[in-house]
């Protein structure tokens, strides 16, 4: 019999009941809650007169709607009354049901996918869900983690379980070493460019290979975060020494004997050598260059040294039409050099790239340089209050401010523009976020997905440049 994949192990360890019809009840160890996708779930519980099954499995924080300025004002600092009601509703629900919440003025507040790992509330081997598709982030810890809808948020609150169908296994292996200036973000954009936005649909992706093993936890989180952009709800990386070292000493992490027992279990969280995957894709790390998205889907990416594609050269009529539509929306010409794309704004932040390592990477590029006068704005939004404090302790805030970037308070911010941070119509933005869909960062806004160092380099130049030239 073939060995088990990491996904098989996590599935088997959480299986409460396999039903005859092919569906299964899977136990959920951790649910993260935020203000946008939880209010209707709590309301559903109340209407059905149900209680949460296990309070201590939940952790909440407001992130999507929070302003990134004037945070000392707390909820009163939210100008939009509709946004304010949503954040107030989360507070009320958590208070009523006794759920631990890092409220807007708490130093530990931040983007859910940043604070889970930061607190050790994300531990290897867990099943983790959240009403947010980027929950795949937590798979970097050898977790089975995925986004769910609001009805499922309610289901998990009420039963601590989810009804699931087992997915297929997919391995994406990045061999060899990455070149200088090439980051986890470039790796995942290159993967999505290769397999497409539906390449992982129906699959749980495990990312492996030397290049992935060499990455820090931050880099692995960036990659798993965007598994959903390749169509896979679940992205995972096997547990190793890097994982365990990251978790050690965090507030929710086990201590003493419990720690030793946990580590013994965590060490088993990798695919067996004889495990069989339904689909395997391999890339050579050395072939990956800094990436820039040119279109309106995360699969529409190019090397920074490359060009915008020419739809006339695309034979598939549906793809050709997609490219034409994207170029029209993005205001780009076929065959235009990527480095000729001029920018209006730069956004460094989001659950993909707002951790301390991301900020260090961006600061290293802008240090001693100035933001281009042609830009309207360049902003840095740390992923949590603790990331912000750490960055300030390292002096990164001063490097950004001296270079002319704005230093903001933590939240989802311009990744999806639910708060006041957004693009104007027709504006081009170099963004470290995860989606370049039409209107994602503001009505008519044009998003280009890049790594933090590429965004920083673009901020200095006013257009895309190969960050490797600035690193010499």
């Amino acid at each position, binding site marked *: 019999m073939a060995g088990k994949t990491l996904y098989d192990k996590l599935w088997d360890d959480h299986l409460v009941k396999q039903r005859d019809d092919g569906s299964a009840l899977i*136990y959920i160890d951790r649910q993260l809650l935020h203000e946008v996708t939880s209010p209707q779930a709590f309301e559903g519980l109340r209407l059905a007169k149900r209680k949460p099954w*296990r309070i*201590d499995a939940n952790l909440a924080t407001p992130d999507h709607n929070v302003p990134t300025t004037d945070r000392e004002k707390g909820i009163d600092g939210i100008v939009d009354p509709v946004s304010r009601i949503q954040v107030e509703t989360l507070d009320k629900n958590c208070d009523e049901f006794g759920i631990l919440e890092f409220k807007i003025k708490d130093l530990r507040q931040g983007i859910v996918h940043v604070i889970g790992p930061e607190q050790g509330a994300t531990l290897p081997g867990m099943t983790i869900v959240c009403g947010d598709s980027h929950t795949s982030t937590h798979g970097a810890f050898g977790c089975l983690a995925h986004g769910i809808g609001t009805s499922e948020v309610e289901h998990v609150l009420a039963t601590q379980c989810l009804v699931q169908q087992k997915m297929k296994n997919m391995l994406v292996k990045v061999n060899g070493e990455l070149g200088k200036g090439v980051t986890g973000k470039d790796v995942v954009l290159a993967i999505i460019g290769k397999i497409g936005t539906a390449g992982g649909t129906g699959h749980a992706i495990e990312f492996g290979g030397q290049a992935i093993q060499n990455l820090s936890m931050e880099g692995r989180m960036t990659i798993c975060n965007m598994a959903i952009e390749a169509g896979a709800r679940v992205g995972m990386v096997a547990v190793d020494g890097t994982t365990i070292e990251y978790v050690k000493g965090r507030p929710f992490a086990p201590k003493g004997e419990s720690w030793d027992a946990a580590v013994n279990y965590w060490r088993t969280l990798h695919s067996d050598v004889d495990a069989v995957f339904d689909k395997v894709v391999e890339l050579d790390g050395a072939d990956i260059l800094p990436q820039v998205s040119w279109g309106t889907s995360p699969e529409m990416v190019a090397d920074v040294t490359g060009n915008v594609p020419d739809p006339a050269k695309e034979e598939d009529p549906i793809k050709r039409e997609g490219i034409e539509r994207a170029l029209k929306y993005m205001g780009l010409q076929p065959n235009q050099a990527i480095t000729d794309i001029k920018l209006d704004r730069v956004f460094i932040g989001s659950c993909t790239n707002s951790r301390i390592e991301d900020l260090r990477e961006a600061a290293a590029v802008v240090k001693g340089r100035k933001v281009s006068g042609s830009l309207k704005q360049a902003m840095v939004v740390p992923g949590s209050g603790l990331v912000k404090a750490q960055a300030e302790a390292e002096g990164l805030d001063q490097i950004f401010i001296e270079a002319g970037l704005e230093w903001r308070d933590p939240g989802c911010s311009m990744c999806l523009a639910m708060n006041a941070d957004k693009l104007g119509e027709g504006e081009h933005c170099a963004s470290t976020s995860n989606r370049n869909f039409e209107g994602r960062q503001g009505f008519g806004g044009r998003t280009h997905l890049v790594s933090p160092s590429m965004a920083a380099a673009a901020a200095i130049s006013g257009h895309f440049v190969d960050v490797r030239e600035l690193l010499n």
Partner: protein
Amino acid sequence: MRAFTQHKGLVAPMDRSNVDTDMIIPKQFLKSIKRTGFGPNLFDALRYLDEGKPDQDSSQRPLNPDFVLNQPRYKNASVLLARSNFGCGSSREHAPWALDDYGFRVIIAPSFADIFYNNCFKNGLLPIVLEEKIVDKLFREAEALEGYQLTVDLEAKTVITPTGESFGFEVDDFRRHCLLNGLDDIGVTLEDAELIKTYEDQRRQAAPWLFGAGQ
């Protein structure tokens, strides 16, 4: 949940692949704490020429005449014919809420994004996967014939065209059972409450670090 057994309705063909959930319902409308009222903002940026804002009377806004749902022949459509990877992007259940609130009961496409597909079933909305060449044929027929309707039978797992041509589709038994009977799946899961408790007790023994942390 509202049950779904059979449905016959007007078909609107939306000829575009990778329709994402930001397109189905833009983020400015996610601030509501209700499940209803999203219909007027379904496909907001495609449907209207101006920028949509929450709490605005959409009936007074300028319509994009090129958008399929604004064509008079597709008024009151309840079956959406779509292209591959429909519903990709975020997990927002507001997307099926908006489609449902607008009046759609069925979406037919060659493929769907996983989370969106799952969310539909929780809301009495039936996503149907048909082969690309069949979807192509339905597109041609729906565009050629005004008033084109399809009949969907969940019990029999078939889609039937006006000429009586029938196409079978797959749907997993549990989802089909819940939808046919309008079942609340939390209620179904809680029938296994004892099993869940047993599992949980074992897990508490084996992995105590997963319990009570941070409290």
